[in-house]
C-alpha cells in the first residue's frame, strides 16, 4: 500500500500552519494503522525550521518545492506540483486543510485526478467495506465522516475505487500531537521547473493585506455562544455583555450568523471553528449536529433554552429552562456583585 500525504500550508510568518500540523498528527496515526509512511508536501520558500518542526510530528518524507515564486500561495503552480507528485507517488490518502488555500487547491487536484474529495470531515478512520451488490470486499479504506445536510445525521463517506482518497478538515478539528522529538525523516527537494509550466504563473498578485485575526475564539477558555434564539442583533448584545463580564469570547451558531446577528468569524461548528473551552455557555442554541461537532468536547456546558427538548440540553452539564433574555441579565448581575 502507498503512503499517506498531507499538503502543508505556509503562514505569512513562513511557518507551517497549525491546521497542517494537526493534519500531520492525524496522518501519522492513519499511516501507522495502514503500515505506511507519512509524507508532507510543502511549496514555498524561506520556510523556517521545516525539518525540525515536521519530523517530531512523525513525518517520514518532506517533499519540498522550494522557489520564491511559490509564496504567497497561487492555485496553478501549487496545483501542478501536487498533481504531478501524486501521479508519481500515487498516494493512498491525501489530506488538506479546509482553509481558503486548501478549499481552493484540493478540489482542482481531485478533479484532475478524477478522484473523490470530502469537505469538512470531522472524523477520519480506517475501516473495511463490502459492496452490497457485488459482494466485493475493500480493506482499509478511509472513512470520511461528517455531519450531513438534514438534521441529526452523521454520514460516513468512502471512496472505494479511486486514489488518493482525499479529504479536507477545518482547523482545530484534529488535535496537534507530536510523536517524538527523536523521530527523523528525509527531505526530498522537488525541481520546480520539472513540476510547473510557465503558464502556471499567469495570475498576477497586485497586492495583499494579511492581518492577524481580530476575532480569536479558537483558544478561548470561556465561550458564550448565541444562537438563533437570541432573537435579534439587539438581543445578541446580551451575549457580548456576559462574555465581557466573565472575560470570555463570543461565539455564534450558523443560524445566528446567517441571520446577521453576529460575524461569520465567530461561527462555531462544522463549517466554522471547533472549540474546546473550559466553559461553554449556549444561549438560545438548539444544538444541531453541525454545531455540536464544533463544541462537544468543551469541559463544561451550560445550556439556556426555552425548549426543554433542545438537543443541546442532552450534552449540557446544566440546563436552564428559560428565556435567555431574562436569564443572561441575572447571570451578569450576580457575577458583577460577587466578584471584584
Amino acid at each position: 500500500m502507498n503512503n499517506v500525504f498531507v499538503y502543508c500550508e505556509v503562514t505569512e510568518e513562513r511557518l507551517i500552519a497549525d491546521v497542517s500540523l494537526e493534519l500531520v498528527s492525524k496522518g501519522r496515526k492513519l499511516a501507522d494503522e495502514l503500515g505506511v509512511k507519512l509524507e508532507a508536501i510543502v511549496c514555498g520558500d524561506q520556510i523556517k525550521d521545516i525539518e525540525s518542526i515536521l519530523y517530531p510530528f512523525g513525518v517520514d518524507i518532506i517533499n519540498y518545492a522550494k522557489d520564491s515564486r511559490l509564496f504567497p500561495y497561487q492555485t496553478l503552480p501549487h496545483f501542478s506540483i501536487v498533481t504531478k507528485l501524486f501521479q508519481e507517488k500515487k498516494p493512498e490518502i491525501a489530506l488538506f486543510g479546509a482553509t481558503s488555500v486548501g478549499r481552493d487547491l484540493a478540489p482542482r487536484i481531485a478533479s484532475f485526478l478524477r478522484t473523490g474529495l470530502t469537505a469538512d470531515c470531522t472524523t477520519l478512520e480506517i475501516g473495511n467495506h463490502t459492496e452490497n451488490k457485488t459482494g466485493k470486499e475493500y480493506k482499509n479504506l478511509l472513512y470520511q465522516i461528517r455531519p450531513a445536510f438534514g438534521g441529526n445525521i452523521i454520514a460516513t463517506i468512502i471512496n472505494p475505487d479511486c486514489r488518493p482518497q482525499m479529504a479536507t478538515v477545518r482547523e482545530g478539528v484534529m488535535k496537534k500531537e507530536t510523536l517524538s522529538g527523536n523521530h527523523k525523516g528525509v527531505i526530498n527537494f522537488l525541481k520546480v521547473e520539472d513540476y510547473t509550466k510557465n503558464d502556471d504563473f499567469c495570475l498576477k498578485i497586485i497586492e495583499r493585506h494579511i492581518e492577524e485575526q481580530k476575532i480569536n475564539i479558537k483558544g478561548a477558555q470561556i465561550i458564550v455562544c448565541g444562537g438563533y434564539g437570541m432573537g435579534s442583533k439587539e438581543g445578541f448584545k446580551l451575549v457580548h455583555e456576559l462574555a465581557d463580564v466573565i472575560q470570555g469570547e463570543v461565539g455564534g451558531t450558523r443560524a445566528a450568523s446567517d441571520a446577521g446577528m453576529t460575524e461569520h468569524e465567530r461561527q462555531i461548528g462544522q463549517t466554522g471553528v471547533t472549540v474546546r473551552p473550559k466553559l461553554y455557555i449556549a444561549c438560545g442554541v438548539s444544538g444541531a449536529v453541525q454545531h455540536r461537532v464544533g463544541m462537544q468536547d468543551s469541559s463544561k456546558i451550560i445550556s439556556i433554552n426555552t425548549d426543554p427538548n433542545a438537543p443541546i440540553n442532552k450534552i449540557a452539564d446544566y440546563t436552564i429552562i428559560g428565556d435567555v433574555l431574562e436569564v443572561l441579565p441575572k447571570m451578569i448581575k450576580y457575577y458583577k456583585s460577587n466578584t471584584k
Partner: protein
Amino acid sequence: MSFKIIVLAKQVPDTRNVGKDAMKEDGTVNRAALPAIFNPEDLNALEMALHIKDNIKDATITIITMGPSRAAEIVRESMYRGADGGVVVSDRKVAGSDTLATSYTISQAVKKLGKFDLVIAGRQAIDGDTAQVGPQTAEKLECPQITYAEEVIKVDEKKIQIKRRLENGVEVVESKYPCLITVHGSAKECRARNAKFLMKFKKAKSNSELQELGQDYSALWNEKPYLKIDEWSAADIMAEDGRLGLTGSPTKVKKIENVVLTQKESKILTPKDEDINDLMKELISSHILG
C-alpha cells in the same frame, strides 16, 4: 466580438430560515417546509456578472443551472435582473452526483455554449457548503480560477482585477481571459428585479414547464426566441454516461447514522434568581469563572 459571461447558479432548499416545522419528528429535514431559493452566493455571482456587463460593451450573460425542470425559475429570476438567457441541464442520469460528477456535467454544458471569457459562480451552495464545484469546473475547462472574489477592482476586454476575501485578509489578483471566478457572500448583493426585464421575460418558459401547463409556445418562440429557456439532457451536452450521477461519483455514502444523544447527567435549573445565583456561585467557587 461580444464578451461572453456564464453564470453558474443553483436552486437550493432554504436552510437558513428554518422555522419550527423545518425538522420532522425523526430529526430529518422536512424539505416540503423549506422553500426552494436561489442559492445566496450565486446571487452575489450574478451581481458581479451584471456589474461587469455594465462596464463592458456588448457583454452577454448566460445562466447555467443543473437540477429538476423547475430550476428554470432560476434562469427566469436571473433574466428579470439583467441576464440575457439561460439553460437548465436536467436529466435523470445526473441524479446523485457528487461534486466531481457535477463539475463534469456543468463543464460539458459550458463547452456546448462555445468560447467564453468568464465563468462566474457562487463560492458554495448552502445545501452542501463544499465550495468544490467551482475549482473543479475550472480544472475541467482548463482555465485559471479566482476563488473567494469580493469585488471587481478593474475590468476591461483584456483583463480583470479581483479583490479576494481570505480568512485573515484580502488579496488583489489580475487575470486574463478565460477565467473562472467564485464569489464570496461578502460581495455586493444582487440588484433587484428590473420592471422592464420583468415585462419582457415574464413569459419565458422551458419545454417541461409548458408541458405541465399544457401550453404551446411554438408560434411565440418563433417570434420571440428569447422567451425560450433551453433544457439540455446528458446527450445534448455530449456527456459520457459513466461520468454522470452516481456512477460518475467516486464518493459513496457508506452509512448514515442518526445521532442518538445519551443524556448526560444534566442538572435542570429554572430561571429563578436562586437557581441562577447558585449556579454562578458554584462556577466562581470552582474557579471555572473568575
